[in-house]
């Protein structure tokens, strides 16, 4: 795993915890492969909020139609990395 993707994973976890006010978890301990819908219980509105913050931060565009792919922190981070390298 590249250093860059590790940094993005950590930042996505931070945003997730911050925006969704998740308790009892730190970015470092946020399991990047946990299913956000099934196990964390996030919904499309939560995901939209996180996506808007990440768009701002990385100056990228996240397509609404891609939401269904963004099911884990790692997948979101990979999506961000891909957009950055476009």
């Amino acid at each position, binding site marked *: 795993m590249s250093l860059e993707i590790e940094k993005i994973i950590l930042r996505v976890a931070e945003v997730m915890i911050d925006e969704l006010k998740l308790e009892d978890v730190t970015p470092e301990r946020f399991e990047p492969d946990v299913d956000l*819908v099934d196990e964390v*219980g996030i*919904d*499309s*509105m*939560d*995901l*939209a*909020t996180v*996506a*808007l*913050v990440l*768009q*701002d931060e990385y100056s990228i565009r996240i397509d*609404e139609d891609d*939401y*269904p792919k963004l*099911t884990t922190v790692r997948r979101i981070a990979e999506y961000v990395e891909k957009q950055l390298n476009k």
Partner: protein
Amino acid sequence: MGAAKEEHVCKSQDIPGKKWKFSEILADNKIKERWEKVRKFFFLRESTYDMTNKCNIRCEGCYYYEGEKQFAKENKDIDAWRSLMKAEKKRGITFVVLAGAEPSLVPELCQVCYEEIPLGAVATNGIKFISENTGYKIHISVWGNDKTSHKLRGAKNMLSRQIENYIDDPRAVFVYTFTRNNIDEAREIAEILADKRCRLTFNMFSAPSGYEGELRHNPSSLLHTRETIMDLIAQYPENILYSAYNTAAHTHQTGLHGLYGCSYPRMNPSTDIGLGRSFRQYRTDLTWDRDAACCVPDTDCDDCRHYAAGSAVVTARMFRHAVNPELFKAWLDYVDTYLSVWVTGYEKGKNLCDNLTAPPGFKVF
């Protein structure tokens, strides 16, 4: 834009060509404050339930008595309902809508639902009072003045009976359904309700599949409804739970599905995230059918402008409204209205946007 009044059309303060960051939109304190207010309720996840196949009146164009659901065998077993509610809560449902045909006729079932899932709303004709013990929002359907109600619903003195039951009841919201034929009567109804300190919101008649009657809207009636609502919002801001963007969205000549893309399972095959995954519409026998699951089953989807559909087709489309301050303010007004109509104890704020804003990617009408 035809006959819509010019003064109601939004003169967007958007800066041409500017790509707004979300953080820049939220830099406006009024927007930020409203955003923080509404986002506390993003946890709401709804499903709807037909409570009984009985009703004490028969209305023209009633959704319940269309399609297959009316033939489901009633389950009146309180324990079965309690088990269902527990199971619903377990799969993440936090908000229930008790609907067909007339929930007030089975108060014990409504109460069980409330005991298990305390956020929700009951759709009722308001003739029979629902006990305060059931702390859901109570949506009382109004289809015109008493003369029109008698004609369409076969019941006398409906409005006075409804008001008598629910005056000063914080749960109550009167829901005036605009058809093609009762637009001007809304002024009379609004005046009566405002005088009695009642809250009022609006619904648009959305034709059941195959309906060919005279209630279905056309472009002219949509524009006339639009003007009427905008006048009433200005006239009774304390009593009317509605916004300019609600008006723009629900009186547009393109229906909600065409404007926003409906996310209810019936129109949305995806089960990945959102309503396509979580929403169910239970019949009175406690079964559900994905192919028919939407907030008002058996509506003609192309004609759907139903107020209850707003949760899915407008509220859930935050992302595409977060492109400039004007559009985001309009969306916030919509969500603020939605929550005040559906969530007990939620108080509507003053609308941030007084003008008609075009839905993303569309003209204003």
